[in-house]
């Protein structure tokens, strides 16, 4: 049994315009100590999924179906109070976008970490403060800055504080939601390296959510590609990047420059992601897909495993498996 398993998770937001199908039948699993990357465009439902995993949805977000299991424990059936005390931060913590507003501007950063420890563990304040000093050291921030406020830190340092905070209660699983977005590339590299070092040192399992494929390539074992609330392709990072089987994945990979390869033209995928209130029938990608035919427009493809755990949801999988570069052939029009 995998350490962390999500099955058919379905979460819709109820809005005045109708249901927003943000997470629609998502399944994946994660082994202990591994890192899974979840990639997709903005608005594809990846951040909603992160919130769903910690049951932090706004009032209009409803989990309609599916299950989340950790060590065989069903997390969705747990009463809220038990979940809050025993799972949140204690077993599953989260690295938010620290450069933004993830830290409360009116509290000292040290106290924000101490608060997390005291909520979940029966230790004295002195003990919690001491541990916070160690945590700050671990992410490369001087413990002398315990009493400083968030506005006194740079974006990269705030992100380190957020990382230290995520590790405060020795969680088993850390969900990182765009941990390096809004940081410049140099700081981004430093932060990623800090996360990677800690992850291997502490044997953490991690779910990394980002729109940046290169970040996932750098340190995830597995990757899941999300499109319009669904996972369209899943597999080991190597397989998915070198032999993408879904037209969308192939398009994403092409859209990133490869520093090692020769000159090639970067191509974007024409069109934009669908409105999740009323997604296209059949395969949700069909309006943007060069291979789409009548079957794609009518029948929704199911995520099907192929060799080596590489799974894809596409009727045209044989075309890409055959090695054709479908995006090369397309004339690029708006």
């Amino acid at each position, binding site marked *: 049994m995998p350490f962390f398993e999500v099955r058919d998770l379905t979460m819709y937001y109820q809005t005045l315009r109708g249901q927003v199908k943000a997470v629609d039948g998502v399944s994946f699993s994660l082994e202990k100590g591994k890192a899974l990357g979840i990639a997709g465009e903005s608005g594809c439902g990846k951040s909603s999924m992160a919130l769903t995993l910690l049951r932090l949805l706004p009032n209009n977000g409803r989990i309609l179906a599916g299950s989340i299991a950790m060590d065989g424990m069903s997390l969705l059936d747990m009463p809220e109070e038990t979940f*809050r005390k025993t799972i*949140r931060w204690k077993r599953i913590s989260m690295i*938010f976008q620290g450069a933004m507003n993830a830290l409360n501007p*009116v509290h000292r950063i040290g106290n924000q970490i101490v608060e997390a420890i005291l909520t979940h563990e029966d230790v004295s304040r002195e003990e919690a403060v001491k541990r916070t000093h160690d945590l700050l050291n671990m992410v490369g921030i001087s413990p002398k800055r315990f009493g400083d406020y968030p*506005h006194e830190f740079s974006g990269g340092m705030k992100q380190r504080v957020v990382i230290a905070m995520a590790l405060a209660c020795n969680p088993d699983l850390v969900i990182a939601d765009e941990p390096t977005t809004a940081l410049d590339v140099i700081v981004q590299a430093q932060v990623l390296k800090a996360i990677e070092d800690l992850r291997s040192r502490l044997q953490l399992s991690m779910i990394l959510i980002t729109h940046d494929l290169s970040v996932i390539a750098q340190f995830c074992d597995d990757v899941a590609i999300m499109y319009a609330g669904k996972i369209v392709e899943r597999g080991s990072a190597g397989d998915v990047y070198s032999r993408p089987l879904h037209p969308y994945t192939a398009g994403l990979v092409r859209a990133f420059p490869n520093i090692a390869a020769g000159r090639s033209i970067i191509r974007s995928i024409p069109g934009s992601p669908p409105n999740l209130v009323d997604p296209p029938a059949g395969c949700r990608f069909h309006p943007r897909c060069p291979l789409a035919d009548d079957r794609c427009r009518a029948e929704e493809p199911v995520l099907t495993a192929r060799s080596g755990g590489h799974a894809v949801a596409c009727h045209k999988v044989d075309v890409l498996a055959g090695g054709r570069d479908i995006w090369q052939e397309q004339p690029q029009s708006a």
Partner: protein
Amino acid sequence: MGYRTYLLRRAFYALIVLFVILSFNFALFRLMPGDPTSLIIDPRFTPEAKALLEKQFGLNDHPIVQYGKYLWSLLRFDLGRSFASQRPVRQELMERLPNTISLFLTSFVFMAGIGIAIGVFAAARRGSFTETFVTGAGLFTYAVPTFFFQLLLLMLFGYYIRIFPIHGTVSAPPPEGFWPQVLDRLHHLVLPAGSNVIIGFGSWALYTRNAMLEALSQDYIITARAKGLSQRAVLYRHALRSVLPPIVTLVFLSLPGLVTGAVITETIFSWHGVGRYLIDAVLKQDFPAAQGAFYLIAIAVIVSNFLADLVYGLVDPRIRVAGEQA
């Protein structure tokens, strides 16, 4: 700019504002129609007696000289003698000031306390029936004209159902002993203070509710919830604490409004305070009395603005620390 420089600069501005207000004050009453001596002079007096009186009060001096004397006496808090009562204005104001302060401090503490509490409550239960009801009620009472509502209360609880006195600050004669007198004053306080609270709590509740909703939608609230903090800790330690700076500022900024609001409330409830003293003085063309009352109000406004600046720096670390670093 350091915090100290900042404060010194604010203090300097405050003094300029005070000077401008005092000058306006001086001009205002001399531009008003009417002859101040007419109130104390019997029409049967001879013109000589009138001239003597005008000379005594300095009304014949050149306006510049009057202005100079006026500023110099205000600096020494010498507010002159009332034309109407012939008593020193400072003494009359000092008699009334405690009444005004007790009425408005009571109103204010309950108004802001109840308002903020309701605002927090409404934000926490957004969309519920109770929330809609309390915010609606707050808006309604806020929209009702003060004098109308107060007269209504006065008629209802002072006349039809006689459970509260209809005028005054204490009974005349006041009851014997310390505690009976305190109770008697409290009894007189209920209607004026209570009506202020009912009229004023709504704006506090709505302001707090909106600020809280804004705070609750911030990323750091998700962080706080993700950390597994209880609902209560998220609400108070994170959301309320982060909206405290603007609320505290608002507390100090609204203090002067209370002093001026005194004018209506004190008139309606015949409260022996500064507001009513001002009204009487204006009606009687009593220059020194009106100027004294205005002086007091101006100082109250300026001091509370200055305190607001000062306190904002204390509750908002972003301002406080910026000062320390400089």
